[in-house]
Structure formats: structure tokens, C-alpha cells
């Protein structure tokens, strides 16, 4: 569980987040959407403990383990390490079976000895996602993970993410600019205002899981889309 109370973040004199309050239960998928500069990336850094300079309260379960996927696929992986080395990082004792199972699911197994420059942007994002799952992260944080990908790749990465999510049920927090992505993936969507970011509204998405990509065509989906769009 993650609880954020009265969170305020300033970069010297610049206030970027203003009195943020929310709670995310274990296994939930939450999307954060908001305009550029509204403090979404900042919020992710605070939640995951990368940035400890804030006022307010951020609480999470004691065994919280975070995995990060960045907006730019070249940021998500180390270019001088092979796929398998990028998975391991310093940890030599990961479960071999689990590595092979997850890499096969994300179609990266046969590329395990390749370097990131030999992979497409989508594969690099899948690598970062696979790493988070293999390390059994219970919080997986994705900062606009699809925005650097073309739409086929984005769709593939989204499907693989959902597939892994369904089998492991970690808590997933995604920043996205794409309403369809956000609705399709999430249990809840948090909409931020212009800087300084405040919560403008929260929309619960009740679509049944597992969700198919075709759900975007349903009336229910369109209703959610209207509801979120009204908040933006």
C-alpha cells in the first residue's frame, strides 16, 4: 500500500506539487495524467524514494521494492550491458527459471546476449519491464513508457505489461499522455492540474480484467473516456 498525505514539493522557489493526497492499494494499477510540467515525473521520484526532499507524508509497505521504466527507452537500460546483464545488474543470485520464463514471455530470451543498441525502442522498454518483474518489484513505476514508441510497438509493450501484471499483480503506477492507454491499463486515473500540480479529479475504471485491446471500442470505454476528458 502507498499513502501520500499533504505532499508539497518545491524546487527552491518553484512549487511543482501542491497538497497531493491519495492512496494506492496493493496490486492496483493507477495512471497519472496531466499537462507537461505538472510534476508527474517529480511525483514518481518522490513516491519511489529517489527524491527525499519534500514536505508531507509518503508511506508505503515496509518491503516496498521499486522498478523503474523511463520515458526514453535509452534511459531505461545500460547501453554497455547485454540484455541478461541488464536484468541481473549487481544481483548474481536471481532465480534462473524465473528469468527465462519472463524473458520468453517478453520475446527477449533469444536476444539475451545482445546489447541494447541491437534492440528496438520497444524491446528496450520490455527489457526494463522484465527486469522489474524478475526482481519481484512490488511497485512498478513507468514514466510515459510508450511515448517514444510507434503505435504497434506501444501496443505490444502494453500487452506484455498487462500479461505480466495479470500473473504477478504488483502495484503499477504509470504516467501517460494517452487516454486510451490510461483507461485500458488502469483501475484508477488521477488527473493533475497545471503547475503546481494539484489533483483535479480521480476516475475509477471498472472495466473487467483481463482486458482486450478491443475494449477501446465499447460504449463503456467511451463513457470513461468522456469522464476523464471532462477533467482535463
Amino acid at each position, binding site marked *: 500500500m502507498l499513502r501520500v498525505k499533504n505532499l508539497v514539493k518545491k524546487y527552491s522557489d518553484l512549487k511543482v506539487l501542491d497538497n497531493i493526497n491519495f492512496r494506492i492499494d496493493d496490486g492496483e494499477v493507477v495512471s497519472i495524467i496531466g499537462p507537461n510540467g505538472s510534476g508527474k515525473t517529480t511525483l514518481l521520484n518522490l513516491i519511489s524514494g529517489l527524491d527525499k526532499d519534500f514536505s508531507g507524508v509518503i508511506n508505503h509497505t515496509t518491503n516496498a521494492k521499486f522498478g*523503474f521504466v*523511463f520515458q526514453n527507452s*535509452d*534511459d*531505461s537500460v*545500460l547501453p554497455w550491458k547485454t540484455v541478461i546483464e541488464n536484468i541481473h*545488474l*549487481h*544481483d548474481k543470485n536471481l532465480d534462473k527459471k524465473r528469468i527465462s520464463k519472463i524473458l520468453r514471455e517478453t520475446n527477449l530470451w533469444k536476444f539475451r546476449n545482445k546489447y541494447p*543498441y541491437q534492440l528496438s525502442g520497444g524491446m528496450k522498454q520490455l527489457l526494463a519491464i522484465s527486469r522489474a518483474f524478475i526482481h519481484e518489484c512490488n511497485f512498478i513505476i513507468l514514466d510515459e513508457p510508450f511515448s517514444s514508441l510507434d503505435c504497434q510497438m506501444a501496443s505490444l509493450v502494453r500487452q506484455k505489461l498487462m500479461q505480466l501484471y495479470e500473473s504477478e499483480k504488483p502495484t503499477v503506477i504509470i504516467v501517460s499522455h494517452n487516454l486510451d492507454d490510461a483507461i485500458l491499463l488502469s483501475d484508477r486515473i488521477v488527473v493533475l492540474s497545471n503547475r503546481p500540480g494539484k489533483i483535479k479529479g480521480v476516475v475509477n475504471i471498472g472495466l473487467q480484467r483481463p482486458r482486450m485491446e478491443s475494449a477501446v471500442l465499447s460504449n463503456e470505454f467511451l463513457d470513461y473516456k468522456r469522464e476523464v476528458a471532462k477533467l482535463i
Partner: protein
Amino acid sequence: MKETFRLSKYFAVPAGIFALAVIIYYLGIFNKLLFPNPAIILKEFVLLLTNKEIVSEFGLTFSRVLATVLISALIGIPAGLVLGYNKSLYRSFEFVIDFCRSIPPIALFPLFMLFLGIGDSSKIAYGVWVASLVILVNTSYGVFHLNKAYLKIAQVYNATKLYLFSHIIFPAALPNIFAGLRIGASLSLMAIIVTEMFIGSSNGLGHAILDAQLNYKIPQMYAIILMTGLMGYLINQVLMLIEKRTIHWI
């Protein structure tokens, strides 16, 4: 055919300079004793390549330069990584580093001689003084400008400090480290040649240049100068080759 064209492009400018030197020689613009026929210099150069004495001077200078570069790297790279990672530490050292770099290095050589004598150790120590600072500063800049996302990866996955430095910060800084090494290597060569010219020095290419000048073997002097250039060029090429092999992911 294409290959010949490429090679001819490569050699066109050096050949042009050589031709220009020949013209200057025959026009007699400079004293022919001080500016000898380039063809004779070239012949002298080829002769020197098989001259045991000069080859051993070359080897001596080269091994001093090599020792200088290696020691400078062993000091400059780790120190640069640590100072680059810890910016406030770098700030504390910044004045000292910049001040040391601002002292014309040759001003310090008498001091090195005083402490270490005129043997290899003072020469190498002097070279290390010059080169390690350059390598250190370049390494630190590499760390300053590394992609901060990589540090975040290390942080969220709780990488050990050892892993952080050896597997993330060091490889990320490698392009700058190699730039520093190449500058450091040419500075080392310069430093070693200068120290070999000091009074009391009795070997190395620097000494051989001075010796040839004092004995008025002018073509030989030019030929040895060319040799020092050849050494610098070769060191640079080898470093670039190692760089290309090492940083294969760019």
C-alpha cells in the same frame, strides 16, 4: 582503384608539404645548413630507424612515457570518478586543481629534481604531475555529464557502491576518460622530452635532439624530431584503437 584514391588523398597533404620544403630549400630562403634538403632528412630518418643507438633511445623515451601514462591513469581515473560523483568534494578541490594546472609545469621541474634527482623517477613524476590532472578533470566531467537515469537505476535496484562505480559510473564516463588519456599521453610525451633535455640528462630522444644540435648534425636533429612526432602519433592511434574496441556500444 578506390583504395588507391583513398590513400592518395591521405598522403596528398604530407607530400605537398614535403614538396614545399624542397622548394624552400632550393630557393635558399633559409640558411641551407639550418634548413637542410628534406630528402636528406628523410634519408637520415630511415637510417635512424635501423640505428641501434637511436632505437634504444626511442625505446627509453617510450617506456618513460608509457610509465607516466599508466601511473597518471591509475591516479587520475579513480580520483576523477570519486570527485565527479561527489560534486561538493569536487568543489572543495576545484581551486587547488585549477591552481595546480595553472602553474607552468616546467617551473616545477627543478623542484622535482631536487627531491628525486635527475634519473627516471623525477622525469616520470614530472610527467605524472602534468598528465594525471588532465585525466582527473576529464574523468570528472564525464561523471558530471553522465545520464542521471543510470544513477536512478542503480538507486532503485539498491546496487552496491562498488557496482555503481565499476559498472555504471566508470563505463558511462569512458568517452571522456579516453579523451583525457589521449591529451594526457601527448602531454606526457612533451613532459618527458623536455626533462630529457635538462642538464644532467644523458639519454632519451630529448637528449639526442640536444646532442645532435650541439654537434651540428642538423639533418639528424630534424630526423629525431620527426621520430618524437612518430611516437606521439603512434600512441594516439593505439589509444584510439583501444577506445573503439572498449566503447563498442556507441
